């Protein structure tokens, strides 16, 4: 058995935390883009498209992220594509993030007074222009604190990717535990690292929230 000092454990976990960060960023950026596209559809004139987006949101918010990861992992394989945990995790987390961000942003847009839309309309702006020049600039201001807060959920969500074999912080913790037989120390360090990643972000989100009030 290799002898691991606490520093060895911590150092290896720190290296694995890079992949947690990378996956979080991919999911957050990807989810943001897909979420924005869905938001535009959700606000658009077509009722059936609105319903489809609402159904999409309900689907991702009403089912476990773990199941979504499994479905992505085994679902991509059905198309005859050789899946890696990377692709499956990135896809599942991107879709998951997009559903939540769409819903958060929809709420922010709904908080903009109806009169703003009407005023923009009376200036003969079309739907896209109303959204781009009048509504979204105002909605972005109230959307930032909850969006930053949701980033914490995404980071915590990436921990589930360990289950489909993606080697990030949690998976590295499990692997190191299997090598060292020190689960108490290892999982304490894992929790500490997640805390170090997430706490500053939740704290910042709270400060932003206080500022917008």
């Amino acid at each position: 058995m290799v002898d691991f000092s606490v520093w060895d454990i911590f150092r290896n976990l720190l290296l694995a935390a890079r992949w947690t960060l990378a996956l979080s960023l991919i999911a957050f950026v990807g989810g943001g883009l897909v979420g924005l596209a869905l938001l535009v559809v959700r606000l658009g004139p077509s009722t059936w498209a609105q319903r489809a987006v609402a159904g999409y949101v309900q689907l991702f918010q009403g089912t476990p992220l773990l199941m979504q990861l499994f479905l992505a992992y085994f679902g991509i394989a059905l198309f005859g594509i050789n899946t890696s945990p990377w692709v499956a995790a990135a896809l599942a987390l991107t879709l998951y993030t997009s559903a939540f961000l769409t819903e958060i942003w929809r709420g922010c847009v709904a908080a903009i007074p109806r009169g703003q839309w009407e005023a923009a309309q009376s200036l003969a702006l079309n739907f896209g222009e109303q959204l781009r020049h009048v509504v979204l600039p105002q909605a972005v201001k109230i959307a930032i604190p909850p969006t930053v807060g949701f980033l914490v959920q995404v980071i915590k969500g990436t921990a589930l990717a360990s289950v489909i074999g993606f080697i990030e912080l949690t998976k590295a913790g499990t692997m190191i535990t299997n090598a060292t037989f020190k689960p108490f120390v290892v999982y304490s360090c894992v929790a500490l690292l997640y805390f170090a990643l997430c706490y500053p972000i939740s704290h910042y989100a709270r400060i932003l929230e206080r500022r917008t009030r």
Partner: protein
Amino acid sequence: MRVAFDFLSILAQWPLLLKGVAWTIGLTAISAVLGVALAVGGAWARSQGPLWLKWIVGVYVELIRNTPFIVQLFFVFFGLPAAGIKLSPEVASIIAMVINLSAYATEIIRAGVEATPRGQVEAALSLAMNRAQIFLRVVLPPALRKVWPALVSQIIIVMLGSAVCGQISTEELSYAANLIQSRNFRAFEAFIVATAIYLALSVGLRALLHWLGPRFFFHG
């Protein structure tokens, strides 16, 4: 490319699925009751407790809310035995779920408690009610009513999170799906069925809790 789905071979295993659903509901029910009860205590401590207790509960809430549930679960199940506390998968799952829910629910209920108008507490004081009576009878019911939708959402999140408990071999729904796919290799179908059941459970649980809340925990 043709993909032939075979859902019948999954549904044929319905006793396993049913057992999984029963475990998922059971785990959720127990941890919802214990978690919310603990959170009421936590909310009291955070808003009216002595300074040292406020601090401890605050640290607890932040620690739990900023770490993933799966790590909390692994810590309880794999970590605690190293410290001499051995737990069965089911008990470890319940403990982790209670710890997780109570931290979030503490913050949710605290928000409701702190929104209570000062005059109501003063009115209760003038009726010679003691502090415990004031908190439980005057402050808590309207606070719960205010935050009930948020609390219901949090309980549903914990129910969905319980899918992770299958990873430590608690025999809940996701464990059943895994077991079925390991027997007949119909992984995609097994997880589709499990996911659909989870969706139905979350819709049902939301309706149930919205019905229960006004009838049992606060009025109207």
